[in-house]
């Protein structure tokens, strides 16, 4: 599959696997996201969306994020 389709995590379809390209949130938030596993090159699976939030799985851990944070995570469709 093509790897050049860029979007943010909030746009990732439910059930899809995406690869993190870069983070654009405030530095301290980006650091926290990275430490929770949302670091560059990590694979994220979008589990579901609702309530303006998203549930995704990274490093086999399920995490709920609000849409503002998810918009700061730039991803591309995983290989």
């Amino acid at each position, binding site marked *: 599959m093509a790897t050049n389709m860029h979007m943010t995590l909030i746009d990732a379809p439910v059930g899809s696997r995406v690869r993190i390209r*870069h*983070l654009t*949130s405030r*530095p*301290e*938030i*980006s*650091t*926290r*996201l*990275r*430490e*929770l*596993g949302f*670091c*560059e*090159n*990590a694979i994220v699976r979008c*589990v*579901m969306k*609702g*309530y*303006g*939030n998203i*549930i995704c799985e*990274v*490093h*086999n*851990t*399920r*995490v*709920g*994020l*609000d849409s*503002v*944070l998810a918009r700061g995570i730039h991803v591309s469709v995983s290989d």
Partner: protein
Amino acid sequence: MDRDGTPTPGAVRGSRTGLIALVGNPNSGKTTLFNALTGLRQRVGNYPGVTVERKEGRMRLGDTEAVILDLPGTYSLTPGSPDERIATEILLGKAPHTPLPDAVICVVDANHLERNLYLVSQVIEQNIPTVVALNMIDIARRHGMRIDIRALERELGVRVIPTVARKSEGVGELARAVLGGGSGRRASGVRLPEPVERETEELTTLLVRAHQFSLPRARSEAISLLSADGARLEETDHYAPGVLAHVRRDHEKLDFLGFDRRAVFVESRYAWVREVCAHAVTRPATEGMTRSDRLDAILTHRIWGVVIFIALMAIVFQAMFSWAQLPMNLIRSGFDELGTLVSSSMPAGDLRDLIVHGGIAGVAAVVAFLPQILFLFLFLGFLEDTGYMARAAFIMGKVMSRVGLHGKSFIPLLSSFACAIPGIMATRTIDNGRDRLATMLVAPLVSCSARLPVYALMIAAVIPPLSVMGIVSLPALTMLSMYLLGMVMALVMAWVFKKTLLKGGPPSFIIELPPYTIPSLRSTLMLMWERAWLFLKRAGTIILGASILLWFLASYPKLDGGTPAERLNHSFVGMAGRLVEPVIRPLGFDWKIGIGLLTSLIQREVFVSTMATIYDVGSDGTSGGLPEKLRAAHNPVTGAPEFTALTGICIMVYYVLAMQCFSTVAVMRRETNGWKWPLFQVAYMTALAYSVTFIVYRAGLAMGLGG
């Protein structure tokens, strides 16, 4: 000697009582392991942030003894919240009141090995002898995960002991490993890109020289300085000017070389983690939807999620009010029997009155609510243990952010249904100071279990047992309304505070959703037992004391002759009540209720025992329980009933909103480090309670409900 030939003396063996730090991610089972190692009892939860207090316990193995310190759960040694700061400072040897631990047990959830190993890599670098407890290994195996322990030990360079803390499996071996000298220590294999490593080493050396830091602490601070952004560096004032100048040069150099300084350290760690897992872990390929996916699709669904959430809350209240009735009646009749027995076996006089009307009646009135409190904790424990609580926080995240609160604020607010004290303490997991303060200020508005006896008494006395639409009983609906009123007012006040005193941008929301698990009956029962014991202890000490004191104040000075009501009117209690009556009269409260409001400042439920004492002392031979006595009470002058439905509702509304709890004030003082915020909280809550109750009373009168 450890397996690599590195000398690793027993961390604790043969020395003074050693200190072992227990560290791990939230939800890694750290608290359960702590209980298994020390035998101490502590609340075991399933959502981030349950461990907010310093917890210590003693562990023995033969002649060796060590103190185990259960550190707050943390994802990394780069602290975000006050909780994580405590853990980080202790492991870096920066905590003023705690020595550097002699050894560390790093608890790792085997199911989330990748994420958990991030912290392990940082802990290992602190050069403190470390043993990794690979916890929940049974669940990982059940999911088809295979972990090669020997390979993992080889990669990490420290002992790895598989454990199932819930069943105490592997706990003995873990104790032997950490106490008996099996703990290894070795620098982690995290490899930074060459130029980054060079600058990190140089800065580490400089920090050791300039500030006499230990090598591990210097390296950890070097990494945090190199990844800091420029603005934050300008705010730092505890480094020598030469160090800061060096850091600025490093920033320029690494930026010029094209490194993302904020990402490179984390990324290198995760690269190492991936390498470790590639050698030691095999996961089964997952296809399609997992069981958790299917559950999440329903429980966090945008419509069904809310419906299920509201239905669950309704069941909790219905259970507390309907199912708890039978045991409550049994307790009441048991105490009645006791009172009759004592009355018949003792000669009449002051001592008999003191025991029967002061002691037994006061304590009985409060202890009768034990079953409801047990039901509340049964449900709270069950919701936590299944993993649903975090989903509820996720569902409520949007609502929370609408009023400017953090999604994580939901957990402290939910904990406040049990008691505002753990609720306020659970706010430590909120990173942002303003969001945390806003949550603390409104947490006591959520109806705690101490209000339950007050609501239950009032409802039993004045709300008829009708059913609404043939499904829900009116008493249960009234109870639910009181809980909703508290929650809604908490949200409204949070919105007000975030718009005025604590202005700030909308907070961001990240929450870990633990896997769904079948709840442990043992841990839920343990929680219920702890709460029941705490409640009974209070009933046996403070409430008994208050009841006896009240009996005295309600019986003296003695009036010879006259009706019981006249005698009460003549007593100290009567005098105090008349003193406050003008202030509370506009709320529809008489002097007897005034006494209850004053005495329940000790604890809210004392209101019930106060009423029991006052009405037992003042009764004129009416038989039945306290609710019946309240219902039967009439003003001796006007002949009007003392407790109408409106009076009962006003009392409940007042208790929903008023800060009637010294213990909460004390905890607020401790958590905010001063008197400013606790006093503000008392003032705003009292003003709110008074004005809302006044409005309800006036509106009720206007609608003709006062009769």
